């Protein structure tokens, strides 16, 4: 184990945010899910006892009838905001006094940085470049991720769970978002901690070797099946991609419609909503890990090879 190498990566000032994310995301996920569990317990209790449901104030926090339902913003909210501002300011000062913003040599187009990494929040996209051609990883995927996020509220036809933490009532929506969020952060972590010079995969603790030579032979999927000429490669790839979409769609459908509750939600979902959901779920959430595994486990570079584009 080369602890020094690991420390060098983790302590690089520009990597501090992603190290912080390693702690912050689990912490806030824990905080959210703790409240979700408490609410779910309450929901079960109320669902079982209709009489209680009529009288209960329906929050897990204490409540007494003579308490005011609302507070004055001045001072009860403003003092909290003021406190938050003070704390953030102190954190920022301490961070800025202890760590210096990096400044490298002056820009030199003749001297390539190796590894040449994007800022940490874009490392997910840079890592995606390994698995997809630049037009997908750099343009189409980011666009799809953003459009997918924007349509998220419009395809979520579940009317429950507005304004409170819950898991039982919103498994599909929260699950889908978490898969995407965790995938995004994982790609960033791979890009930060694992990718070394030449964008070569170094396990944490392995020394970054600038002269490493890789004997990796990447193949295209059609070649494995002995299809080596166009247009058969293109046709074969198209069929495989089509099959991938159909099978993934069926898999997603099977997974999310396990319970009676989800079937009820499905009845409320219009065909358009469901198709859009399926499209983004397959294209963004499934194809990314599928391509990653195909590449890392089977050394498959392209699935669909045509004369105009490769996927």
């Amino acid at each position, binding site marked *: 184990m080369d602890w020094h190498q690991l420390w060098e990566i983790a302590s690089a000032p520009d990597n501090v945010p992603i190290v912080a994310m390693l702690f912050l995301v689990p912490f806030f996920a824990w905080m959210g899910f703790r409240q979700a569990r408490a609410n779910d317990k309450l929901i079960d209790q*109320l669902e079982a006892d209709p009489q209680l449901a009529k009288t209960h104030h329906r929050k897990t926090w204490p409540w007494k009838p003579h308490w005011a339902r609302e507070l004055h913003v001045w001072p009860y909210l403003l003092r909290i905001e003021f406190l938050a*501002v003070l704390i953030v300011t102190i954190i920022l000062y301490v961070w800025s006094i202890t760590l210096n913003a990096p400044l490298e040599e*002056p820009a030199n187009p003749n001297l390539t940085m190796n590894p040449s990494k994007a800022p940490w929040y874009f490392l997910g996209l840079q890592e995606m470049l390994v698995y997809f051609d630049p*037009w997908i990883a750099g343009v189409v995927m980011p666009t799809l991720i953003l459009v997918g996020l924007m349509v*998220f509220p419009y395809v979520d036809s579940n*009317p429950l769970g*507005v304004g409170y933490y819950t898991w039982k009532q919103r498994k599909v929506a*929260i699950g889908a978002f978490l898969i995407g969020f965790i995938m995004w952060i994982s790609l960033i972590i791979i890009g930060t901690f694992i990718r070394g010079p030449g964008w070569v995969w170094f396990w944490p603790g392995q020394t970054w070797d600038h002269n490493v030579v890789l004997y990796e032979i990447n193949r295209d999927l059609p070649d494995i099946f002995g299809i080596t000429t166009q247009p058969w490669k293109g046709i074969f790839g198209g069929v495989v991609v089509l099959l991938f979409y159909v099978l993934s769609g069926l898999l997603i459908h099977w997974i999310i419609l396990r319970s009676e509750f989800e079937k009820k939600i499905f009845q409320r979902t219009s065909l358009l909503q469901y198709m859009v959901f399926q499209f983004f779920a397959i294209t963004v959430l499934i194809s990314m890990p599928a391509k990653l595994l195909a590449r890392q486990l089977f050394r498959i570079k392209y699935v669909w090879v045509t004369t105009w584009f490769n996927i």
Partner: protein
Amino acid sequence: MEPDKPDKPAIQPPEEKPVAGVSLIERVRGDVKEDIDLLKDKVSKENIKEEIENLKDPTRTQLYKSMFRVKHEPTPRSRSLGVLTNVFLHLHPAKINRDAVRFSYTWGMGGITFYLFIVLTFTGILLMFYYHPSKGQAYQDILYLENDVPFGKLLRNMHRWGAHLMVITTWLHMFRVVMTGSYKTPREFNWAVGVVLLVLTLLLSFTGYLLPDDQLGFWAVTVGTNMARATPMLGAEGPFGPQAGMTQYNDVRFGLLGGSIVDANALLRSYIWHCIAIPVIVSVLLAVHFWRVRKDGGISGPAPVMLESEMRSPGARAVKQSVK
């Protein structure tokens, strides 16, 4: 300061004297005596004492009243007006759900993100005083800032780490909104605005990366904009790009960089996007974002839990009707 207080003897208006028969000198002398009497009255001990007494309570001064418009007292009316009549605070409602102030519900991430935007604007403006967006000079400016400008290093560090922190808080804010279902009707549109703000936050951070004009920024931007080459239809190396007439001198990457390489024009464009264009767009969208938070009923909760048995039938259509 209270002009309508009838506390001192009113000064007698000068009597109309017949003009004829009075010499000019006497008239002048009379006027002067009157003025002196007025002044004497102003500087009299009682008057000064009273004026000082009035200043002791600043909230009664005209100056204070002109600034704050409402008296601050611990009464519900005064507290509400204190928020509603203040341009900086009127973003808030006068009253909120008693559980909404809990940290565990909102995590405070939206507000912190906005505060960081203000911090970054502030430190960014200070940095602009020391920075020329020109090749050669830019790097020297950073060295000057780091070594000679008082607190220059701290300033640059705060801008850098503040930017990183803002990316983190934006993500966590989005995470919270998903976890609490706050993007649902009637807040769908505000969520979409939020997604655009997220993109702009990342772009702000990214355009700032090139400005020190060092190896880190140069290569990050080179890698980043090389992806633009591959844009379908619009990039010289993207699918169907050449067929659409794209070369490296007219494609989308050329437009981003203001040239075919990362050079002086790219630095200038980056600077304008970073310091002017994107912050202006972000400010406008922030206004929309906050406005919609209020118009859509304030922050989403903590709301009472809803039960599955209370779910009303056919959904998509019911939702459509509930939007007026």
